[in-house]
Structures are given as C-alpha cells and as structure tokens.
C-alpha cells in the first residue's frame, strides 16, 4: 500500500490523453467521483485530450465508430458520413438519463466540485495554442515536472 492514509486515497491525478467521447468521459467521471468522496482531484489534459477543454472543440466531441470493435459496427459502415454523429447522439441520450452531463457542463461541474484542471504545455506548444483557446475552468498550462509535483502524495491514473 502506498500514498494512502487509513486505507483512503487522499488524492488522484488523472491524465486524459484521448479526444474521443469514450476517451474523455471515464477520466471526468473518475475525477468527479473522487470529489464526491472527498478525495482531492487534478485533471491533466494532454495530446488530443485537450479537445475537452477547448472552447471551439468541447461541444463537438464524438465517439469513434472506426477501429473500435466493441461498437459492433463493421468498419466499412463505421466510415460512412454521419455514423459517428449518430452513435454519439445515441450515447449522449443514454448518458443524460443517468444525469451524466455533456462535456462543457461536465467540465464546469467537476471544476465547481473542486477539481483542478490543467493543460499540458508540450501539447499546447506543439499545436500552437494559447490560454485563450481554453475554457475559463483551466487553472494553468503546466509541464510534466509540475504535474508530478502536483500529483505528489496521491495516485496517478492515465486514460
């Protein structure tokens, strides 16, 4: 056992590295769930995961219908225009029934719940982004070293 006191996890630092719907939601649900249990939470968005906190993109996140065998859609059909949008719409409808919000509302919710949101500096530089590209809930753009500093004393989860 490590990084825990009395069997309770004190802090989680979650890395969201993928930009698809199924790549973003698990990390958000885990971060939000941590806050609901009184666990400190950091979220570090890197690579395509940054789409979740970009004002121009966070409303357009879609589920991948190609290269995803668990979707049970043949790849040849998955490539058809609109397939991804339809699959996303269906999934969002089911999630709404469980009160799982759309990404922008979820980002706001997890932030209001006290989670800290960070953008990865290497990706920001690579994609020529600035702080203005991100939603207001993003605390800062930080490098890997700073991430480890913030994560110290807790668990790190990569998604």
């Amino acid at each position, binding site marked *: 056992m490590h990084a825990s006191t009395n069997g309770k996890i004190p802090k989680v630092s979650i890395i969201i590295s993928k930009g698809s719907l199924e790549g973003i939601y698990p990390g958000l*649900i885990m971060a939000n*769930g941590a806050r*609901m249990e009184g666990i400190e939470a950091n979220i570090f968005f890197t690579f395509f995961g940054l789409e979740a906190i970009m004002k121009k993109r966070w409303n357009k996140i879609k589920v991948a219908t190609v290269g995803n065998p668990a979707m049970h859609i043949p790849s040849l059909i998955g490539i058809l225009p609109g397939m991804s949008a339809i699959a996303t719409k269906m999934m969002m409808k089911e999630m709404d029934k469980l*009160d799982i919000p759309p990404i922008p509302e979820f980002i706001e*919710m997890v932030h209001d719940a006290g989670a800290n949101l960070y953008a990865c500096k290497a990706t920001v530089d690579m994609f020529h982004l600035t702080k203005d590209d991100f939603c207001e809930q993003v605390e800062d753009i930080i490098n890997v070293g700073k991430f480890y500093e913030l994560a110290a004393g807790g668990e790190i989860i990569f998604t």
Partner: protein
Amino acid sequence: MATKTLAGKTVEVDEEGFLVNPDDWTEEMAPLLAEQVGIYELTDRHWEVIRFMRKEYKERGQIPTVRRIKNVGGIPTKELYELFPEGPAKKAAYIAGLGKPQGCV
C-alpha cells in the same frame, strides 16, 4: 439489521448508518444525523437541499444527483460542496434519511 435511536425513535440503519426506510425519518432527526457526518449547524440552504432531496425521492423514487440538485433544485455545485464538504450527495442523503446514493455521478 442494526438500529439506532434518533429523536426518541428507534430506526433501522444499514452498516454505514444510512436509514433503511426513508419513511422513518422526521425533521427532528436531521440535526442529529448531520452531527454524525460533521455538520453542526443546518442553515436554511442546507434545509433547501434536504427538502429537495426528500421531495425528489418521494416523486421519482430516486435520490437526485449533484447535477439534478443544481439544474432542478437550484443549488449551485460549488455551494453544495461548501454546505456538505467532502461528499455532498452522500452526506445530504444521509441527513435527509435516504439510502446511500448508488449512481456514479
């Protein structure tokens, strides 16, 4: 099943102390349940949350989520976390005499 006595009434509770039967709950029990989760004063805003949760449970048979408490109950998430620190949904449900919330959000 364990029991405990609150405000002169003996009620069934689960292993974590949540009331088993929401109908056993009375308003007099709320401050006592609140103390057990470290909340020593119930303000009007606390009561708004508690009453909303009771109402939702009665009408829909479900304990409302944090999102629903915000969107339908009108209590901002930030404030909810301030009112019920370190576990808003769980603590509010506990004080409101409802079971432990089972959802993931």
